[in-house]
């Protein structure tokens, strides 16, 4: 248990170095070590998606990833993706459509949605629902979330054509 190692990685564009226990999960590292509390913990067993963050451009579950696995990698969380503006369109659409209630699932939803918006510009409602199937939301019933993401996709498709 006392065994620790030094971890160096880039989080939201900033290089950080910390001493961590090998058993520390990425989500705990982000929240407890770095104070990045935007990503949440819902189940700690990979089912709910509340802890979804991006590692080297790919979305992962922060509760199933060990911090030490991220050595040398680039981690992006909702805080960084908000500040960089990458999430701005989705955030606006979520806000206007009330695609969140308590907001606890929202950071994970947004990071998962961003992944879809970037990788599948032609995604249908069905595909949106499928893609979000690993992200639990108890409040909304999902429809508003699907609507908001669809709005962004439609908007981007229009932009792309123009």
């Amino acid at each position, binding site marked *: 248990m006392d065994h620790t190692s030094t971890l160096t990685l880039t989080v939201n564009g900033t290089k950080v170095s910390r001493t961590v226990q090998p058993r520390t999960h990425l989500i705990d590292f982000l929240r407890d070590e770095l104070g990045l509390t935007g990503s949440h913990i819902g189940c700690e067993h990979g089912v709910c998606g509340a802890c979804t963050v991006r590692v080297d451009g790919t979305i992962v579950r922060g509760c199933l990833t060990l911090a030490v696995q991220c050595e040398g990698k680039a981690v992006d969380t909702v805080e960084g993706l908000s500040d960089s503006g990458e999430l701005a369109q989705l955030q606006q659409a979520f806000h206007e459509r009330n695609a969140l209630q308590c907001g606890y699932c929202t950071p994970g939803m947004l990071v998962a949605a961003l992944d879809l918006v970037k990788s599948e510009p032609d995604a249908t409602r069905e595909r949106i629902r499928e893609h979000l199937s690993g992200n639990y939301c*108890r409040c909304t019933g999902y429809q508003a*979330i699907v609507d908001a993401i669809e709005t962004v996709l439609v908007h981007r498709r229009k932009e792309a054509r123009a």
Partner: protein
Amino acid sequence: MTARDELPVKGSKTRTQAGYIGKAEPRANAKRLLQGRGSFIDDLRFPRLAQVVFLRSPHAHAKIRKLDFSKARTAPGVIAVVDGRAVAEYCTPWVGVLSHLKGLKSAPQFPIAIDRACWQGEAVAAVVAETRAQAEDACELIVAEYDPLPAVIDMHEALAGRHVIHPDLGDNICFNREVDFGAVEAAFAKADVVVEESYSFGRHTGVCLEGRAILADYNAAEHTLTVHHATQAPHMMQDIFSKHLNIPEANVRVICRDIGGAYGIKVHVYPDEMCTAALSIMLRRPVKFVADRMESFLSDIHAREHKVKVRLAATKAGEILAFDLDDLTAIGPYSVYPRTSGIEGNQVVNLTGGPYKHQNYRAKLNVVFTNKNVTCQYRAVGHPIAVALTEGIVDLAAQKLGMDPAEFRRRNLVPDDAYPYTGAAGMKFELLSHHQCLDKLLALMDYKALRAEQAELRKKGVYRGIGLAAMIEVTNPSPAFYGVGGARISAQDGATLRLEPTGMLTVLSSVTEQGQGTEGIFAQIAATAVGVTMDKVKVITGDTSTTPYGGGTWASRGAGIGGEAVLQAGKALRSNILDIAAAILSVDKATLDVYNNEIIDAASGASRLPLAELGRVAYFRPDTLPMKFQSELMVTRHYTPREYGFTFTNGIQASLVEIHPDTGFVKLLKHWCVEDCGTVINPMLVDEQIRGGVVQGIGGALFEECHYSEDGQLLNASMADYLVPMSGEMPDIVCGHVESPTKSSELGAKGVGEAGTAGAPGAVMNAINDALAPLNARVNSMPFTPERILDALGAANAKG
């Protein structure tokens, strides 16, 4: 002028800011959550913060023979390891009873079990350490030995009472109630058609994405306790902390910032949370507890474990004559404090048959103790059961009469012009709109076309079903709900409005926010009432030391009760603003109005004075005002519903499903809900409350059940094993509204937060049975898993 004429909140003929009521305004407070900048309890950082974890009983019922903490106490980072006796020195026990639920009984409950554990998951020891990981490591070092006791798991066993869980209580019956209105026997005797069916409802739970969470911070120097708490009812908790921890009420402050879902789960007193507060006092430092997922399944209240037999009597012509009900429900080993676990069953008795005009009704209810986790009020409390069994038996009667289910309902729903009306169960309805809702629903879904399509598809071997569920719903509860039974739970709420020097408006409300949009609609009401634009309004909730006293958020009461208080405070503030304006401008108050952040001339609409200027004068240059004039730019008003015990709402839902007879899978194709919640303050938020509620109801109908083994082990305490609705399986939900404002308040708003959950399970059940009807199969045990549907199909086949 009457109050209503002075400030019509809708359809204003004056220039008063009427614009925000009824508008789909996005919620300002959602922005921080969208950027991950909310502050949930586990996000808070405190100096000297310690974390507590609990050792929980692995047995459903056992004597605690031995607890050896010696190894745990010396583990790294450990601050304290305590048992029930140690914590009881700091926190008195409680008993969850209410005097108006006559005869309801329960046993004293302690923060940590003393000598005996009564369900698997009850805390038997607590470990406090510098970090959670350290506390968890140390928890594993506790040596605990138990002598298992006979566990009462089955509710019939509990009723039979071979083993009595709390010997002092004499039996396992927490509460029973029998009602008999009209002439039930005679009605059944003369009926042309009698149908009878039994329904069972799986025990399920709320699965808030954020686990229960509390951070208690005791200041020994001041003898004050500040509790950051994920609770729906901060003033109730202030009272309870004060009473059981022996700290003067004014020294207890409960703060609720962001809360990751609640739905009734976070409105109860939990032993581990009381323990956390006690530990903060004992250790004189801040202590935090956040339930992990397994603890949530084991210790968040469960709900809805009912077995119900229901009978319905009708005439050939399709008139319902009577309902007869026998409900048995099991609540775990304790009635939950302070709301009790008798309410759910009581609601089933009060609500069954509620939409219909029969006048004969009999019901019997038994609420029994078992050695499973406790149950208590969870979103829609009793409604999903009452609606499903009412609507299930109504459909069965329609089937037996060969009548279309929509038509059968039309003949029996209480007419829209019959109000005020008292139902067979004695509930008083001010104004409902069952027929308007039914008509609207049938049009919205194009019922006829769907029936035609269903018939066509059946010929092709596609089994679709359409299910309807009419409902009534308890909202805006008066003190009759809890207060009269002795619970120190406020039925009243308050709002304070303050005009700031720059013309901004601060609103403080005793209602809390868990994402419903309370703060958003209060901003809409306040802006409307005072005459400012929404961007000028800031709403603050969830702090006992700053907001007015009130009940908080539960039982669909926030908009109707808290909203009315905001409206009344807003009107009073507007009047005060006009007094100041009249003084500044030396004109008659009656010639002025407030509109768009300005004082205007009421007749011409000409701008006279910006509110920012009025604020500047009132706060910084009162010397320029007439000698005896004192401005009052802060106003508080309260509101308590009094005329009716509850402001009932009504609505109707429909579900369209497709069944795959080979696999037993149910595909939800679409869902509709038409609801009458009176004045709709924000249609978008209302619809999203309904949609979220519907999906929660669907969860109970199709997926969710806490499975217990015969010896009381919860078998599926993880999100991998306990299925919840995910986006892929959920249908789109179409919402419609009828608006019959309540006259008991000026705002006219009734509650809506639980409507979706109330009606969805019944609608889905009826749709499934409608799809199964040509196969001669029927299901009546929720959740309707593929296995249960296949079983029903198998039984139908066996019968040939």
